């Protein structure tokens, strides 16, 4: 049996709900319903099942009804019609007490803006869910501290949310949701407010958590990469309707319709991706001042095998490999004597044009701006990644 099952779930906002509902049953489109009744359809006859222990991602552009859908699951928004089964019990028919119990014991939610209470410390935030259940203080503090320990946040337990970084705040949000030991985690664009680096970290943490704790996770996202990284199965929504459900592979290989195809960015990426999009931050050595010792130190701390050598005005002078730097130190040479040539490209060069250059190059490519100053480097791996997507796209006709 599915852990969560949704049948004919519909939510209509506005005043004239009844006539709008009749139209939904006749499968009249969302725009026509709005014209005829003035009521907005948030979720339109949604049906899906979530299995125990899977990460189920619901995707869609903004306005597609995905946030409404997740709020219907724990009835933060009351459904207009349809049923939501949790372990076979219909949530939409529950009275207040039963619903409270489900929210307290079975489902916890993590929010896009973290939803932390600013006037409570990290610990007080984490134990909130247990507090409203009336658990004695000592017991709940122990559980909350355990949850924080798991998130490596215990040292910060007496800080306030405003004193933490975004990533830490979201880990508190997650710890708060997990402190209740729920069966289901609802995550509403939980990582969208974080910067990309932290975001990837959090995604990895979530995958790890899932491997350890086997929670059922319903995850809302508008980011395909995120969905592909963490989702066991993905549902794509459009205008309140669920248009396709499947694994990432399914959705990429057999898009149900043009919308999904467009959504999975069915364009020749190598024709639109520029060097700027795939470049990485360079680690540089200034040959006018740095010597081999400094260069080697930098390589160790930055964990790279080579540096881009630049002059004072950040113009590329060449590439300095680790071996060359060692050689310079041994033989007492200056850095500029051991450099190898490094090809440079303009930052708006297309991936498709970079391929032949990088194929011949023995070093990464330096990316320069219009003034000739170094802004990044392109490494082989990223180009291949971009090309891999192209391969996949070539099976389709070009959209643009």
């Amino acid at each position, binding site marked *: 049996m599915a852990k969560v099952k949704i049948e004919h779930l519909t939510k209509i906002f506005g005043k004239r709900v009844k006539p709008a509902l009749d139209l939904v049953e006749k499968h009249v489109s969302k725009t026509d319903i709005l014209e005829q009744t003035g009521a907005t359809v948030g979720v339109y006859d949604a049906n899906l099942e979530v299995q125990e222990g899977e990460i189920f991602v619901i995707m869609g552009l903004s306005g597609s009804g995905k946030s409404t859908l997740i*709020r219907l699951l*724990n009835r*933060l928004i009351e459904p207009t019609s349809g049923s939501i089964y949790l372990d076979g019990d219909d949530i939409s028919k529950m009275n207040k007490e039963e*619903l*409270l*119990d*489900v*929210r*307290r014991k079975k*489902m*916890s*939610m993590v*929010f*896009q*803006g973290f*939803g*932390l*209470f*600013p*006037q*409570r*410390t990290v610990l007080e935030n984490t134990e*909130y*869910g247990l*507090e*409203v*259940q009336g658990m004695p203080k000592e017991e709940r503090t122990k559980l909350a501290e355990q949850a924080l320990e798991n998130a490596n946040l215990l040292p910060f337990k*007496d800080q*306030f949310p*405003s*004193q933490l970084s975004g990533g830490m705040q979201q880990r508190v949000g997650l710890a708060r949701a997990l402190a*209740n030991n729920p069966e289901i985690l*609802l995550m509403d664009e939980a990582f969208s407010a974080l910067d990309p680096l932290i975001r990837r970290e959090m995604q990895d943490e979530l995958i790890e958590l899932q491997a350890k704790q086997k929670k059922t996770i319903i995850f809302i996202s508008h980011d395909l990469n995120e969905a592909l990284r963490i989702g066991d199965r993905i549902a794509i929504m459009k205008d309140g309707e669920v248009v396709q459900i499947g694994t990432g592979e399914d959705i990429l290989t057999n898009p149900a319709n043009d919308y999904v195809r467009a959504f999975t960015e069915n364009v020749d990426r190598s024709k639109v991706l520029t060097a700027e999009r795939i470049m990485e931050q360079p680690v540089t050595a200034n040959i006018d001042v740095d010597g081999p010792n400094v260069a080697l130190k930098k390589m160790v701390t930055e964990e790279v095998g080579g540096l881009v050598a630049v002059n004072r005005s950040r113009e590329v002078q060449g590439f300095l490999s680790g071996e060359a730097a060692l050689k310079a130190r041994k033989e007492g040479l200056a850095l500029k004597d051991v450099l190898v040539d490094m090809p440079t490209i303009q930052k708006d060069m297309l991936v498709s044009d970079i391929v032949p250059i990088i194929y011949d190059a023995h070093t990464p490519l330096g990316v320069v701006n219009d003034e000739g100053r170094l802004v990044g480097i392109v490494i082989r791996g990223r180009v291949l990644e971009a090309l891999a997507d192209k391969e996949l796209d070539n099976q389709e006709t070009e959209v643009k």
Partner: protein
Amino acid sequence: MPIASWTEKIVDWMTANWAGFFDAIQHGGQGTMDLANAMLGAVPPLMMIVIMTIFAVLVSHKKWGFPLFVFLGLLLVWNQGLWADLVQTTTLVILSSLLAIVIGIPLGIWMAKSDNVAKVLQPLLDFMQTMPGFVYLIPAVAFFGIGAVPGVFASLIFSLPPTVRFTNLGIRQVPVEMEEAADSFGSTPKQKLFKVELPLAKSTIMAGVNQTIMLALSMVVLASMVGAPGLGQGILSAVQHAAVGAGFVNGIALVILAITIDRFTQRLNVDAVEAQQQKSKWRKWVGWLTALVLAGSMVGGLFAQQAAAKKSVSLVYVQWDSEIASTNVLAQAFKEKGYQVKMTPLDNAVMWQTVANGQADGSVSAWLPNTHQAQYKKYHKNLDMLGANMRGAKVGLVVPDYMNVDSIADLQSQADKTITGIEPGAGVMAAADKALKAYPNLSDWKLQGSSTGSMAVALDKAIKSHDDIVVTGWSPHWMWKKYQLKYLADPKNTMGQAETINTMARKGLKADKPEVYRALDNFHWQKGDMESVMLDIQNGMSPEKAAQKWVDAHPKQVNAWFEK
């Protein structure tokens, strides 16, 4: 539409039918006020100033401006001899504000939770805030008589809206995500309110409370018109006597109090992060210790006061110079005989009503048969009229003697066709109004109401610049000693003949306090006596001192009042 008479009917009905309820509130409220006043008043001023300064140091972190201001400001108030008034005003403000919080915050919560309630309350709050505070005083007196309670009642209505509005606003402004987070963890509505909404709305609510306190302070002056004690009375009497200095001093005291309260409430409103950083052990200790000392000295003082409870008498009067003189003299006489005297200055109509309702023991300020004719007609059935305490009083239209008119009938277009009057509710104003109607040559004249003090100032100014002026005058009055004035003849007798100032007592005083009743009954003196006291006051002596001086000079006469 007879809206006025409907309103009267409703208020009359309420006064009659809910008398028990109102009395209970009046007694409870008065008791609470007296207790709070006694407690605060029991603490020696210097000790209180030090304690307040310590509190100021505790709430302002390493900044010395505020504690210094509190210390010097309160010291100044004490130095000006306004400490007792300040204490009374403070209790009034604290009580109104506490009530506003107790009533306003739940109302605000209810308003935030229900759009329908908000729809009903919004216009009601607008109405409450924009209706002039004066208007609330009228039913307040009808319901609760005079004293601090109607003052609190009027302040409450006037100052409640900000607390309600800001509470509503604060709760409605709680971010949706916070509400959702609270709900998603299965909080009951009550848990959500106390754990999430109120803490998040706290600073907004505090801003509303702060506004409420400020409005309550501004109502203090108004409430004095119905006998609320404190700094307001000083300001009101300064207005009525155009005493710039006294008005300024009382005003400054009120400003010091306002700033002190405002800064305290603002500093108590810190957010969680700040609060955590400010936590320090010694602060807590010092705070509790100071509070303990304060409580101890209050209770101690209370016992001391309880032991010294005495026979009491309450007198009401109008803030005319004549009545200030007579009431103070009588009060001093009572004090010499060991009574606790409560003197309340009121508007004329309210004074009559108060004695008629039995909320004051009596008054020696009834001008009859003409000046207070309207009030006499309305209330005399419920009063015990004890006869004249001074004869030869007179009211009329008065002009400087350099003006060449001798009779009201001679007035044509002098003085911009204006009669400079006093408080609109005064008896002499009603008489002047009658004169305007009775004399055809006055048909296009107007009667300009103001206050006793303003009238005196206007008269002084006119005489100095030798302008025409017609005022509503009366004797005994110090102005007859200061300027060359004359009454205008009144052939139609609209302004009354020579009058008497009479004593009235509440029904039942004879049975309750026979000694007081006898003294009131015996009290009488001469016009010359009164004018000498009035002149002393006019020349800068305080009313108590001037009265004391007269009482000391006439022991025989004073003792005669208290004999059987």
